[in-house]
């Protein structure tokens, strides 16, 4: 049972959030120019890391904000959360503020 730090609402129980998948993949910047390989990578290719990962979560029972969450899939430790436009990588080592 995680406690996730919503950028707007603060620390809230995981039951208020919905999981939204891998946040390390970005929708192609220019869809018209993207190659089939780009689309294949975006739609289908997913790592299944054992360790730190960045995921999309939506505060669906709260402010409805989509956010990025750094989570350790092995230990369930949580790292930083970030708004969609803010960079956040699995290797982020700025420490945990959750």
């Amino acid at each position: 049972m995680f406690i996730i730090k919503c950028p707007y609402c603060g620390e809230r129980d995981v039951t208020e959030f919905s999981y939204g998948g891998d946040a390390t993949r970005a929708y192609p910047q220019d869809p018209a120019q993207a190659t089939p390989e780009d689309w294949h990578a975006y739609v289908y290719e997913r790592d299944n890391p054992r360790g730190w990962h960045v995921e999309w979560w939506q505060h669906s029972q709260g402010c409805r904000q989509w956010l990025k969450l750094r989570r350790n899939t092995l230990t369930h430790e949580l790292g930083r959360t970030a708004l969609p436009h803010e960079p956040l990588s699995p290797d982020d080592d700025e420490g945990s503020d959750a």
Partner: protein
Amino acid sequence: MIGDQLRRHPTLGGALDRSKALRFSFDGQRYSGFQGDTLASALLANGVTLLGRSFKYHRPRGVMSIGSEESNALAELRTGARREPNTRMTQIELFQGLEAQSQNRWPSLNLDLLSINGLVAPFLAAGFYYKTFMRPRGFWEKYEYFIRRAAGLGRASGEADPDRYERIHRHCDILVTGAGAAGLAAAKSAMQAGARVAILDEREAPGGWLRFDRNLIEGAPATVWLDETVAALRAADNVTFLTRTTAFGYYDHNLITAVERVQDHRAVPDPHKPRQRIWTFRAKQVILATGAVEQPLAFADNDRPGVMLAGALRGYLNAYGVMAGHKAVIFSNNDHAYRTALDLIDAGGAIEAVVDVRPSPAGDLVRAVRDRGVRVYTDSIVSHAKGGHALQACDVTPRGGGRPETIECDALGMSGGWNPAVHLHSQTGAKLDWRDDPGCFVPATAKWPCVSVGAANGDFQLADCLANGSEAGAQAAKASMGGTTATAVPGVRAFREERPHPIWEVPLGPDRRGKRFVDFQNDVTVEDVELAHREGFVSVEHLKRYTTMGMATDQGKTSNIAGLAIMARLRDKPIPEVGTTTFRPPFTPVSIGAIAGQERGQHFQPLRRTSMDDWHAENGAVFQNVGLWRRPHYYPHAQEDVDDASRREVTATRGAVGVCDVTTLGKIDVQGPDAAEFLNRIYANGFAKLPVGKARYGLMLREDGMVFDDGVTSRLGETRYLMTTTTGNAGPVMAKLEFYLQTVWPELRVRITSVTEQWAGFSVAGPKAREVLQDVIDIDISDGAFPFMAAAECRFAGAPARLFRISFSGERAYEVNVAADHGAEAWALTVAKAQALGGSVYGLESLGTMRIEKGHVAGTEINGQTTADDLGLGGMLSSKKEFIGKAMTGRPAYLAPDRQKLVGLRPVDGATWIKAGAQLIEDGAAAPPVQMLGHVTAVAFSPELNTPIALALLSGGMARAGAALEAAYPLTGESVRVRVVSPHFLDPEGTRMHG
């Protein structure tokens, strides 16, 4: 000796209130006890030692322990709807009129015919299920019935639980589990530092072993310190003190769940209180002071009633005044069990012998016992316990071998030392370390902010419990809130104890007879573990599953160590290298009622009702649940069934007019200067040029190119749209739109809001639809002014409304949205007008029939595996713009000609219903396996065509038009010959809806 509490000591028993006598019954026999007794202590006081039969061999069993680790003394408690199986008698508080039954015996506890299993025991060894019942193949189902009967535990009541349960959530700085010496010391120092503390204990009274042992704190009996400390904690307003509360689960981020048995100690709960309560604690710091569990020793027939853990023997004496035996023997591998000998002697009992596996024990307690003239057999073992339904004697044999000496006894206290109750620590995934002295597993580094103290950490001396507990409380307070206070630790005299000898199993005696139980509840013996090893089971996890050791409801609290030790001996490795199994929640069984709490019956999940719900109910609607919503399925008249009613409703709608509640469709208000651009990217068809006052059917794809959802979106103003979604996808569509706006296209100036609940919706369909509405709508709805696919804001009988000329039924149809508060009124008015014109209301069944007649797709066709082209909607995909999912629509597999595509079906005989879900195959007579070409997605009876019809997804789709196939439903053996036709059964040109 049975009855009259003849085993009760005249003065001892701190837990008892002797002024309150209680009557109770066990297996129909009446007994008396005192307030403060447990069922186990009261039965022991009455000399009742045979309490149950074992799981597999139906061996007679008595009480083994004095706590939640009990694996023998299980009972069915109460009667009728409150009957509860497998309750541990050691934890059941006695109450006036308590009724309990022994379990797993037939016809009675004394004469159990199934104890014949003990004679055929060689065939019931580890893994016997796997070996015996696998042949002949397929017979398992026949064996299973008898096996389950013979190897049962208690019986559930089979009736609805009459009691209430509830849940509480609590945040705290420090959670202390266990209110023994260490836990109380920790809570006290944390309380004094000002932290918000919660402290739990599973027993009815706090104190742990302070109540069961004789100890001095600051020179006074330990109960003085106990009472003072408990009083101080209970008085503090920063402390939550819960007894009868078991912490049973430890989850991520310091979430601890506990069950409080609020009213289990009463025959019937107070009507204003829940029976049990689940607490969910979120703690900044957790202190585990869960104590330790004494381990049994595996010697021959160590399960005879009268054999119990040495600590339990003295606990029953000190707390409940029960002299479980007058001639007792103690069998131990450690010094601690000598306390039992001292306590029994001081209470006037006789100790026949202390049998110690160690060659020359000389600790303080050992000397004290010797000083009282007790014979101590060193370097010896109890090789066999004798007796049937009760212990009569035991054989003592030197460890080096030799003739056994038989000693008469009526109680035998065994002790394999103590193992910390590491269950909660282990549940988090944290590891254990093996500690050689005294020979037990202790918690390694905790995973979350948590520390184990006292016996739970392998520190068994009272002085250490108090000092370490106090320190842990202060440290936790500092960590969670800063600041610190020094707390005085009371003085305790320490006994010098020597190291236990790490053995938990001993050889059979010279008679080579008897069973040495390791897991008492699942009847697993030393021989079973040895057999598993011979058969190649090396991992402890495999050993556990093969022998079922540790898999009973006691989760192996008293069997894991011995099992591991045997495995270690067989593999010739040290115990820590053999490893431990994983403990999982719950620590002790938790009733389903408590877990469900108040979320049962109609509170299981919320029920969403539309504004018109009361009208539906009053007019006899049969409801159907669609997600959380309930919607009218059909409105039967008199004796009509669903088919009759639907046929009437459809005929009335197509002949005159029908009214249907469509409030549940998702409605999303889309606003902003870039709203048109946003919708154009979301929908697969064009939305950029939709004029104000027009509605358009829109198709949404997923990013992988499959169809996601469909609905009608209307442009209400220059920068304002109303989107509708299917009922089931309202939530997912909203979340998806928010995802794209917030993460992919943050530059778009668009805001979206769900308005599903703000607007009641109903459709008015049929040739007389306009007639129904023209007088109540304040705008001109003539065909010229309000043609097909028009949309407008308006007033309905004065109420704010929106009107859309759209059709799902294929008839001339209008969809009305009215401000939700006016929904019921507007509906009633519309229905009255429709009925005056020969129309009807209609429900989901008729809605489905009419959409099937028109070949409109719904959830069974939009199943996540169909593309727009599969559904006959390929022409909608825009080639002029980018949209979600576009890039994937050209993938070769999506264009394969044999894809399953939408078709219509009619039975060749024109009469037989086609089953939804039926498989389409070429030849009904062919022997399987046959190629499955597709399946039937929706079926209906068309009153207008006077034939059953169906929609299906069929390989090749309309390329097979005209072909005859078999719609086979092997589950029921039904099969019908069908012909492939266009899915547009009625009015394919759409002349009706265009008007």
